[in-house]
């Protein structure tokens, strides 16, 4: 399989093999971590989806009641009081603050509503008639807005989580299907290259050894030959009369 498929442009050395191996290990750890993160997020996501469903249904009911209480006000006051209310409201009574919630490293903004009870700007509206309905209507709408705020934080979390889950899943898939196979490929490539080198080396060594042996053998042969020749020579020449000063050439057996 060496060389087949995608691999990283590295030189097939033992050092890069080590690097690749540690990279593979890192990728696998990262993969399992990301997988777990994605699972945690998905779990959260499902929960939020469920809660959004609930909140939306609740909103439908609450808004209906609120709209009806407005109808009650219209009936009791017998006219349009919208303008008066708009003009007499100076400060927000219903306020929203945000805080962050950390879900497996993702920061989800959460809206929290609270009312400032001291603000009662249109407390006197409908003093002559319908005042009670106006107050009641305000309470109903405050509840409706509360539901809306709840829904808003859920929806925001929904969008953000969706985005994050996509990113994480992309990463998980990238690691699983690209990085890990590629690293594995690279490793097997390096391995095969190294093996190839090994074999070459081995073959070379064998060749060298053969050559050497052959040379040796040849040398041996040579040596033997020369030795034999030498011994012949020795036989021929050996009883050199050291003293004779090789003058006795004429002695023949």
């Amino acid at each position, binding site marked *: 399989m060496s060389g087949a498929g995608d691999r990283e442009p590295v030189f097939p050395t033992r050092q890069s093999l080590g690097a690749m191996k540690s990279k593979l290990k890192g990728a696998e750890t990262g993969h399992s971590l990301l997988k777990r993160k994605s699972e945690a997020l998905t779990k959260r996501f499902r929960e939020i989806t469920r809660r959004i469903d609930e909140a939306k249904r609740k909103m439908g009911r609450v808004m209906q009641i609120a709209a009806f209480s407005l109808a*009650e006000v219209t009936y009791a006051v017998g006219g349009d009081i919208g303008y008066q209310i708009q003009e007499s409201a100076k400060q927000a009574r219903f306020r929203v603050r945000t805080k962050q919630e950390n879900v497996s490293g993702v920061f989800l903004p959460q809206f929290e509503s609270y009312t400032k009870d001291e603000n009662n700007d249109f407390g*006197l509206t*409908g003093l*002559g*008639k319908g005042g009670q309905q106006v107050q009641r209507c305000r309470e109903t709408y405050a509840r409706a807005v509360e539901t809306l705020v709840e829904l808003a934080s859920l929806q925001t979390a929904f969008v953000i989580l969706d985005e994050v889950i996509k990113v994480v899943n992309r990463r998980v898939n990238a690691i699983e299907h690209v990085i890990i196979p590629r690293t594995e490929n690279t490793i097997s490539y390096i391995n095969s290259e190294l093996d190839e080198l090994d074999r070459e080396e081995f073959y070379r060594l064998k060749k060298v050894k053969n050559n050497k042996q052959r040379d040796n053998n040849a040398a041996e042969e040579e040596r033997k030959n020369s030795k034999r020749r030498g011994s012949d020579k020795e036989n021929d020449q050996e009883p050199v009369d050291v003293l004779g000063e090789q003058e006795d050439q004429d002695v023949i057996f």
Partner: protein
Amino acid sequence: MEGLFFNVNGGYVEGIVRGYRNTLLTGQNYGNLTQCETIDDVKLQLSPAYGDFLASLPPNPSTSSLANKTTDKLVAEFRYLQGQSTGTLLKFMEYLTYGYMIDNVALLITGTLHERDTRELLERCHPLGWFETMPVLCVATNIEELYNSVLIETPLAPYFKGSLSHQDLDELNIEIIRNTLYKNYLEDFYKFTTEHPELKGTPTAEVMAETLEFEADRRAINITLNSFGTELSKQDRKKLYPDFGRLYPEGTLMLSRADDMEGVALAVSGVHDYKQYFDTVGMNGGMSGSGPGNMSGGGGSDGKSLEDMFYQKEMEISKMAFTRQFTHAVIYAWVKLREQEIRNITWISECIAQNQKDRIGNYISVF
């Protein structure tokens, strides 16, 4: 004696009003209306009574446009009557419009206070409360100018004079201004109907005295109930009670001291009718846990709320006014009945539009 010459000036108008009264929706009509499934059905059911005025509405109109059109009819008829009337009747009808004028002026004052373009507000004003110099109110840009040069020119000037200064306009809550004006208006109207030489001792004086006394008491009670839990002090509250009525003076004095529902109930116990209302509401209120003066269904109970009962009583008084002859009071009664009818139609169509049929029967019908 008073019947002898009444018809010289008022006979035609009275006849017309009695005719108008006969076109008011009856219990049968309301029964049909509550059976409707869509606003279009409501429109169809209303066509005998309101035909021309509803004709221009698009299919499935909004409830507010329905209410506007029905109000248009009331206004058109009222204007016609106004055009036919002379003498004390004309004055009487002017008095009728003052109540709406107070609302309009309060609206414009609110606009001026917040430095809005008051011209936009003109179309929000109630058409019955329209007076010639009303657009002039928009000229004023600050409250002092409004008070010194513009309000003085309006028919409401006497009600401002003596009880409100231009500083008050700036500082007081617009609701207090409105209710002060309304108190002055009611007192003036009462004085007019009972003490005017041409009306004194006539059936007009009798009927109107009863009606206005009831109206005064209702306002006093409502103001008291609605002021609980607000920054309105007892002294200020006392100033808003009209100086007549069946509760005046002992009842209003007690009302001004009342701190809670029981206090109010005690204050009105001197008048049998009101005591009865409070007893009924007290029982319902105790069970449902909802406060006084709420709409009956608000707390989920079927009983009628105080406000409902007051409306009911007002309608009955208005109905009784038609048993008298030679009186201007029938016009007042007719306007009130008509207003209630518009409210009923709005309520029924609102219930239908919002699919809340369970409380559709909350309207008030006296015929």
